[in-house]
């Protein structure tokens, strides 16, 4: 089943002197359950592409259709609700809410969705367990290691039961041990629960785990291989 389809997107940053074509005509589509790495040199447009897919940024032209919805047509406030219910995010710098505990960070998303207390409670504990952090439920982010924070971030991204998860360089701030743990968890979730992951990375070990690798250069897709 097709979850994302993007057609002819272009994004130009209008820097006063020279315009930068961050994304320069990309067509792609993603199926449910894919495990995709987006690679390419620095400045090639990976982050821009992910932001556009996630509805955080708008392309100058082209369309993005997620499960049948053309997100370019959504108002900014509708887009926020759409993101809440359909897209999970994992950021490079973890970006957990510092004043909330690990469990509360996960519950926050479900709060926004208006889930019941019982549901929040059981699902957040279940998710913490699946990322191996059930014993740290009540720790605030500053009491967790970078790897642990990123695992909470993955659990948080899953909390809303999104259609897919976007992760921009999720392992860039992690040591190799934590990188490995995180990837194992992501792979397990992908295999066992058929969750779609799309992540960008510079790390060859991370690329190796991917089952599809998309290479971008100068805002264009130069190769798209399944392995």
């Amino acid at each position, binding site marked *: 089943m097709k979850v994302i389809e993007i057609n002819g997107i272009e994004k130009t940053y209008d820097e006063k002197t020279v315009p930068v074509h961050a994304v320069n005509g990309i067509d792609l589509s993603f199926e449910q359950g894919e495990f995709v790495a987006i690679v390419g040199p620095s400045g090639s447009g990976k982050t821009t592409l992910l932001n556009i897919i*996630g509805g955080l940024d708008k392309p100058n032209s082209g369309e993005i259709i997620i499960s049948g919805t053309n997100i370019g047509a959504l108002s900014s406030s509708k887009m926020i609700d759409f993101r*809440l*219910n359909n897209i999970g995010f994992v950021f490079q710098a973890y*970006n957990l809410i510092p004043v*909330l505990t690990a469990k509360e960070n996960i519950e926050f*998303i479900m*709060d926004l969705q208006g889930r019941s207390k019982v549901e929040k409670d059981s699902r957040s504990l279940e998710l913490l367990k699946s990322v191996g952090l059930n014993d740290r439920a009540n720790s605030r982010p500053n009491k967790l290691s970078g790897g642990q924070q990123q695992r909470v971030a993955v659990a948080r991204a899953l909390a809303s039961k999104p259609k897919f998860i976007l992760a921009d360089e999720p392992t860039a701030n992690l040591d190799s041990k934590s990188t490995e743990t995180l990837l194992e968890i992501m792979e397990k979730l992908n295999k066992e629960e058929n969750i779609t992951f799309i992540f960008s990375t510079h790390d060859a070990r991370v690329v190796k785990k991917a089952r599809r690798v998309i290479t971008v250069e100068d805002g264009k897709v130069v190769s798209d291989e399944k392995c």
Partner: protein
Amino acid sequence: MKNTYSKLAWRNIWRNKRRTLITASSILFAVLFALVMRSYQLGIYKSMTDSVVKTYMGFIQVHAKDYWDEKTLDYLLETNEDFINKVSSVNNVSLIAPHFESIALVSAGLQTKVAVVMGIDPEKENRMSKLSEKIIHYKLDQDAEKQLTVSGFSEELIVKINESRKKSYTSKEDAEKKLTNIIGKENTKKYLDLILKRTKIEGDYLSKNDAGVLIGERLSGFLKLSVGDTLVLMGQGYHGASVAGKYPIRGIVRIPNPELDNLIIYLSLNECQKLYSAENMLTSISLNLKDPTEMENTQAEIISALHSDKYEVMTWKEMNKILVQQIESDNYSGLIMLWILYIIVGFGVFGTVLMMTTERKKEFGVMVALGLQKYNLGFIVFIELLILSFIGILAGIIISLPIIRYFVVNPIELTGSMADMMESFGIEPTLPFAWQFDYFLAQSSSVLIIILIAILFPLAKVFTINTMKSLRG
């Protein structure tokens, strides 16, 4: 959900404790300063008006027409039951004190001086101005000084009391309070009984048709008169004839208004009317009111009850335009000063809040990326700032209460040039604080409004946050 918002707001307040403390305490000090300063200002106004209203003027006076402008005995009120009944029929009037006021020359021995002679109904006057409580019962004259030194009281302390110029006391409590300020608690405890014994002087209030007088302390000092001595009053009577009378002094009174203290002689109304050969005549009646805030309405009611252009009904404000103006302009400058303070605090709050929202921009961006609507984000930040403001305002109120209370109970007694200046304006040189709370709400809400204005811009930035930019920042 709302629960989560308030949880976020509350925890964020305690996240940067130092900044919270700085912001809350700047609000606290603004409120504290405003309340203490206001209670000081209002206290002064109250004591100023009290010294006018309660000394003899009353809230409202009724005169014969043109008396107020001319102030001569050509314009007198004739007292009859009908007139008094009409005035007392007005509901808000609680007391009618008749006055016969005129100028006379007073002489004793070789000294002669101009005086204000005030004929009063002793009982009513006492209810109006507590005149009997102003009679001096203890006085440290040279005789008393000598006796005190003989009894072992140190000269040094006598010098101190002399320097303070508070050498006479109306009661034991008055003496205790003043002496504590001058010679300290210890000494007062030790010597109070001795001082009272050695400084006791005679002094009685007037009886109904008393043939004697009460005299202001300063005037008695000038004329070198004490209780039991006799003085002579000379003046011009009702029909222009010269009149004179001889009166023994029953008591010496201290009038808070120093100028008046240097002029006043009280006489029973009867004797006064006899002196000026103006039986049944008055210069004015002074009225006390049950509810002073209704003064203007009451004035109108009296005017319509009397229904005659023979009379003139004036409020104390109309009779003391200059004082009222002074109070008003002082009040305005006080308020302007407060608003300047508020604006300074407002800028402080603006700075810290802007810093806070800028620092947390990335976090805000993340929350919006995750699916939090911008208006809800703005709401969370607003709640956070509101709680913070309330903490500051509440703390300011709580801390100001005991401070104000302290100064209400222990008014600051001024000495030196400041005191001289105030006395020259006819005001008693103490700074009593007001113990009233109507201005608390006004000041607290002014502070709150300033805060709301100060956070408007940072908050607007939160409401319209650019998710992409914040995420990158």
